[in-house]
């Protein structure tokens, strides 16, 4: 405490120090600190009018505000902008400094990079049949993603339960995917390869949340994490491509062809290792993207609105809407999934306390356009079903579009009510996180149940 004989109590300095302590907690924004400081000063004034001295008033007023740590914790739950981590994990335990974390990240990244070469080195890849072609696409997600999960099991100190969850699901999926007796180039094999990463990504999310998917704020955090992870990964990939291209070129000048080395070692190992690195970067440097990523969604959302609207109008005017060809249907579904991703991130990066604005109307427009397109896709699928009967691809497409229909209707409804001031933004967030397990459950169905249902064709 700053006390000197001339100036027994400097309340301004004392308040400034108190405020500084507040601002160290990243759960509190500057506005929050302003608000609490106003409260403190108001209380101090009242106490001083009652005859207390400045230092007594400060002590009592700050005491009445409560323990700053528990207040900050409460703030973190409300703000839910990923800041809880800094509270929960703000005290590094012995040996758990950033050096140690960096070491863990490097080891895991190298392990992921090795994992993708292991089957080759151990001669696990079958020769001379179609499996040789499909082995890697089918297992791709299983090489890298479990190591990202491992990073969070360690980082969040989940202990045995976390390890069991991660290794259990990974093992089960690996066994299922590799022991199913798929027929040559089976559709169900490709479908399971596409849906497998979704299941694994959710397992990462459960680890990421640090409390096994228990609280709303952490679920939203994970969605934000996913968006930022994607951006970081693309940036790393871009850098990696440029670097390898330059290296290959340089070696070419001196007469050495390292193209094979790149294709066989550098590319796959780099792609896997970068997964762990990207996850670490989002964690370590999150404040960098926190300001950039929402800008990206604000740039892309209007563009997607225009694309979807144009598509919709073209279909309706030309009357092509109801006779979608197979390829168009696939393209449309990919587009809808991308839109859903954009929507997920857009909702999660929005400050829930802001009143409805222009961007929210735009989001609503995006949702509505996607909803209509989804309906058109469903009509087309129904027609194909009645014409050709059920196949694995059609069943998967039907399920996906039905879930999209359900999910997008919910978004449209909640956005509409939010825009009309009938409910807060948190209802929309609730809907968003409630739908995540539905997507994952469907992905799991496609990975595990669809192949046997369609006898592995």
């Amino acid at each position, binding site marked *: 405490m700053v006390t000197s004989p001339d100036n027994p109590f400097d309340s301004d300095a004392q308040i400034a120090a108190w405020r500084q302590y507040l601002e160290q907690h990243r759960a509190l924004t500057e506005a929050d600190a302003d608000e609490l400081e106003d409260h403190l000063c108001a209380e101090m004034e009242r106490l001083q009018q009652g005859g207390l001295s400045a230092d007594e008033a400060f002590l009592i007023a700050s005491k009445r505000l409560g323990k*700053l740590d528990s207040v900050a914790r409460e703030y973190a739950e409300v703000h839910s902008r990923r800041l809880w981590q800094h509270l929960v994990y703000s005290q590094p335990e012995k040996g758990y400094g950033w050096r140690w974390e960096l070491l863990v990240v490097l080891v895991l990244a190298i392990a992921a990079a090795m994992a993708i070469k292991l089957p080759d080195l151990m001669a696990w890849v079958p020769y001379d049949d179609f499996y040789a072609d499909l082995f890697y696409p089918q297992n791709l997600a299983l090489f890298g993603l479990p190591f990202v999960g491992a990073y969070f099991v360690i980082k969040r100190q989940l202990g045995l339960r976390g390890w069991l969850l991660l290794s259990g699901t990974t093992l089960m999926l690996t066994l299922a995917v590799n022991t199913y007796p798929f027929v040559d180039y089976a559709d169900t094999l490709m479908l399971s390869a596409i849906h497998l990463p979704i299941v694994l990504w959710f397992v990462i999310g459960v680890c990421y949340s640090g409390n096994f998917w228990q609280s709303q704020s952490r679920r939203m955090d994970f969605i934000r994490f996913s968006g930022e992870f994607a951006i970081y990964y693309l940036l790393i990939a871009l850098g990696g491509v440029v670097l390898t291209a330059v290296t290959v070129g340089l070696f070419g000048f001196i007469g050495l062809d390292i193209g094979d080395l790149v294709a066989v070692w550098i590319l796959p190992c780099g792609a896997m290792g970068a997964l762990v690195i990207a996850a670490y970067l989002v964690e370590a440097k999150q404040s960098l993207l926190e300001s950039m990523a929402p800008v990206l969604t604000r740039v892309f959302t209007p563009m997607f609105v225009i694309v979807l609207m144009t598509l919709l109008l073209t279909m309706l005017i030309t009357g092509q809407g109801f006779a979608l060809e197979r390829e168009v249907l696939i393209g449309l579904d990919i587009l809808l999934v991308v839109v859903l991703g954009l929507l997920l991130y857009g909702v999660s990066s929005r400050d829930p306390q802001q009143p409805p604005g222009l961007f929210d109307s735009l989001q609503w427009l995006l949702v509505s356009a996607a909803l209509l397109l989804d309906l058109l896709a469903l009509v087309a699928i129904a027609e194909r079903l009645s014409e050709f009967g059920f196949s694995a691809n059609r069943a998967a497409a039907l399920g996906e579009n039905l879930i999209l229909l359900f999910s997008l209707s919910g978004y449209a409804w909640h956005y509409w009510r939010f825009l009309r001031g009938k409910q807060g933004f948190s209802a929309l967030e609730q809907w968003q996180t409630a739908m995540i397990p539905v997507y994952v459950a469907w992905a799991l169905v496609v990975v595990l149940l669809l192949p046997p249902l369609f006898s592995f064709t």
Partner: protein
Amino acid sequence: MNLSKDLMAASSTPLVLGILADGESYGYDIAKRVEQLSGGALNWTDGMLYPLLHRLEQQGLLEARWRVADSGRKRKYYGLTELGQCSLRHQQQQWQLITRTLSRIWNDTHQQTGALSDGHFA
């Protein structure tokens, strides 16, 4: 009196909404009014009021704006939205139902003291 944690959590929302029904106000004033109205018996940890206010704001029940107070400090004022008024009416009905029921139960037991020992709760 110390309220249980659950009751505190359940009652704080209608208290805040009820006070703001009279017109917009700021955190310190809300805390003081709750203290006065309860005769000093309800004592919140003041710091916890603000996360609650922010949560209600997120749910769309309150809207906030910053003003400059007479003291020259920035001060955040909260007011009820339409949704907030609606929610307040709902909560009023619920709490009235509870208090009515409880007071009937307790009045009855006063009138027939001793009847409690029979197997009323079976």
